[in-house]
């Protein structure tokens, strides 16, 4: 067990690797995440960012290395256990229940915080605590106006918001956000950025994002990945000034 | 019981395994490449056997019967694929199960309509009717060796086609990424028709050569279907290699099961499958 009591570290990865056949999607990553900090991971597509998030959320099992969350060893833990420990995630590719209503989507997320859902007798929608948590998530994401609309009939931007709302409804302590702004217009995007700023006051956020402006606006810490390798970690300013990073990644994007 | 007895059982098991392989390889190809569950696959085995019986009766020669029956069976596969299976590619497994189940009802009843409810047999051709003497009292029929030999030839041929020819490449490509295969200009529908018809041909052919050592009876397709499904699942869906290994495991163990635990013979096979899947839920050789 890693010793994390001496500082403010909430999540720690040690020598984390994931291979698909001969391809090393994540290659020996050592990285600590501090509590209460917004930590963004940037890098070109295919750099291994989503694989990295999938390792943290338990959707993939690491080939090598360990993950610790507070006092828990998350290595090889199932996604449901990780969620129950207080790590929520959103997906880059919208992953909602299209045939459920907007509220039902958050409902099923919120209900997961019950001790058990092996309840057969009481109608689900009578549980006020679950209902409140679901509605709060909708309010935070500005979706409270139309809870009865089918998720499939919502606009793309709204679906992206619902994606985040579902994560919020599980009341996580640490949030893994996989490209929350993917494909959003500037207005909708601004709302999400605003929301993330709010959440950052009370939560720890780990964020993958392409939109550099957004990353620089909200992140405290930045890590740069390329070809599965962690190139560098530091504050926004440090990363901006880093030669390696500019050559590998930023340089291209900024001048573009 | 002595060594030669077990040797004979082993030979029988291997020979049965080869037959299962012919049936299961078609099934696993259709699973793996077209993502279609074809429950009617066993019916084609039955149809093959009855075609051989019928044509042998007319022409007096099993070889002639088989030669004539193969194109009939492949043509039937072609028709069934075009008329029914082709509609299933975009549907879920549930509808595939249902439609092919309905095909079983139709084929089984058609068999009763054409050939009645009695059991039938087909004579072993005279040229292959001899036996090889193993010991004073134990002999092994030549025809069974012949069946094994033919299966090996077909198996090797299939391996060559799939691994070495352009058709084989497109078949493997289609199994891993259907859309990309289409986007490279391959007519995937025609590919599916070919694969399905060949699969039907293999199952029917297995029925034909097995006709002289198996008896023909209504509903005989059911047994072979379920055993082949077990083979495919044990081997790993879509894997020809898996189908071969699975067929050998099931072939040998079911023959030994019949001699060693006669009262529970059929259960041995299923228990074995359950065991393997608890150990490896995706089968022994999960295809790429």
């Amino acid at each position: 067990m890693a010793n994390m009591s001496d500082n403010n570290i909430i999540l720690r990865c040690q020598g984390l690797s994931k291979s698909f056949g001969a391809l090393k999607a994540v290659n020996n990553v050592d990285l600590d995440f501090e509590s209460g900090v917004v930590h963004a991971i940037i890098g070109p597509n295919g750099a291994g960012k989503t694989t990295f998030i999938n390792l943290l959320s338990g959707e993939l099992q690491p080939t090598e290395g360990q993950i610790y969350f507070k006092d828990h060893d998350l290595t090889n833990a199932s996604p449901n256990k990780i969620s129950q420990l207080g790590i929520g995630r959103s997906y880059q590719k919208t992953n909602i229940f299209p045939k459920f209503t907007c509220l039902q989507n958050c409902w099923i997320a919120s209900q997961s915080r019950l001790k058990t859902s092996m309840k057969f007798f009481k109608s689900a929608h009578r549980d006020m605590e679950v209902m409140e948590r679901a509605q709060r998530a909708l309010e935070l994401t500005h979706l409270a106006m139309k809870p009865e609309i089918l998720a499939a009939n919502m606009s793309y931007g709204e679906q992206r918001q619902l994606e985040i709302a579902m994560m919020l409804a599980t009341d996580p302590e640490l949030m893994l956000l996989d490209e929350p702004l993917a494909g959003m217009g500037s207005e909708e995007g601004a709302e999400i950025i605003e929301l993330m700023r709010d959440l950052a006051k009370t939560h720890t956020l780990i964020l993958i994002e392409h939109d550099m402006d957004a990353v620089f606006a909200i992140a405290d810490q930045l890590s740069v990945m390329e070809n599965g390798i962690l190139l560098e970690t530091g504050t926004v300013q440090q990363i901006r000034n880093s030669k390696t990073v500019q050559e590998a990644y930023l340089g291209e994007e900024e001048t573009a | 019981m002595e060594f030669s007895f077990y040797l004979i059982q082993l030979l029988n098991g291997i020979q049965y395994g080869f037959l299962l392989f012919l049936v299961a390889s078609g099934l696993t190809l259709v699973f793996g490449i077209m993502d279609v569950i074809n429950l009617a696959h066993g019916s084609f085995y039955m149809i093959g056997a009855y075609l051989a019986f019928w044509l042998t009766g007319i022409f007096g020669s099993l070889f002639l019967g088989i030669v004539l029956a193969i194109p009939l069976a492949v043509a039937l596969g072609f028709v069934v694929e075009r008329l029914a299976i082709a509609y299933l590619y975009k549907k879920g497994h549930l509808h595939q199960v249902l439609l092919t189940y309905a095909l079983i009802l139709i084929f089984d009843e058609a068999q009763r309509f054409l050939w009645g409810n009695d059991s039938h047999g087909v004579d072993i051709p005279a040229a292959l009717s001899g036996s090889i003497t193993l010991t004073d009292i134990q002999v092994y029929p030549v025809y069974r060796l012949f069946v094994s030999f033919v299966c090996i030839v077909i198996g090797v041929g299939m391996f060559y086609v799939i691994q070495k020819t352009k058709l084989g490449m497109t078949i493997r490509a289609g199994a891993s990424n259907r859309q990309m295969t289409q986007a490279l200009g391959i007519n995937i529908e025609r590919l599916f028709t070919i694969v399905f018809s060949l699969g039907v041909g293999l199952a029917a052919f297995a029925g034909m050569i097995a006709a002289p050592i198996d008896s023909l009876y209504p509903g005989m397709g059911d047994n072979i279907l379920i055993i082949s499904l077990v083979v495919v699942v044990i081997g790993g869906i879509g894997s020809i290699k898996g189908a071969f290994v699975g067929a050998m495991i099931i072939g040998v163990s079911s023959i030994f099961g019949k001699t060693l635990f006669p009262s529970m013979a059929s259960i041995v096979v299923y228990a074995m499958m359950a065991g393997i899947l608890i150990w490896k839920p995706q089968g022994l050789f999960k295809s790429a």
Partner: protein
Amino acid sequence: MTTGSPGNNTPLIEARGLHTFYGDSHILHGIDITIHKSETVSLIGRNGMGKTTTLRTLIGLAPPRQGTIKVHGRDIKKSKVHKIVHQGIAYVPDDRGIFPNLSLYENLIMAARSGPNGRDDWPLSRVLDLFPRLKERMGHMGNQLSGGEQQMLTIGRALMTNPDLILLDEATEGLAPKLRKIIWAVIKQIKKAGIATVIVDKDIKTLLEISDRNIIIEKGKIIYDGDSEKLIKEPEILKKYVGV
């Protein structure tokens, strides 16, 4: 297939009023696109705006509910994907679509064929000259290749079908800068060889440099279609719709 005869001014692709849906979601809202012979066209827009869908619609993988597509002047709306492809269109998808269970060599030759008018400009040797790195890895399986090798392979595989037009979706995405340069150099050679291309990419700068014409898509509609010089002079358009 004789429609591609020289001196004929029929566009390679002429699409009118395309409306494409994925299930119930309406992705393309009436798109018109014309691609001429040997033309390099870039398709620009943010994520989720319909760039990939446009490419998939043109090649028939996402058939439109409304609208017409003519390839070499012939309506292909009801044609199957492989028929459209045989008109001389190749597709390089953003996920590369390498067959993991085929060797690199098999990936290259499985679909190799002559072009629509019998041209055979891209034999294996020429493709390998373009990507010397592939030569060393002929026996490797598709899933043993690095991202860069996969990208080279998917472009090489497209060339082996001797196309008149290649649709390139994010061909440089996720590659190290060195590899990106190689891919861009190859795209320039493809342009020089007279093959038309439609390129989707995030590297707007190189796109403007390389393409003859730029199309900007916003929420499933084309909001700009004009040549590169004009677009360079109007940076506010790019700023507004692409955020660059």
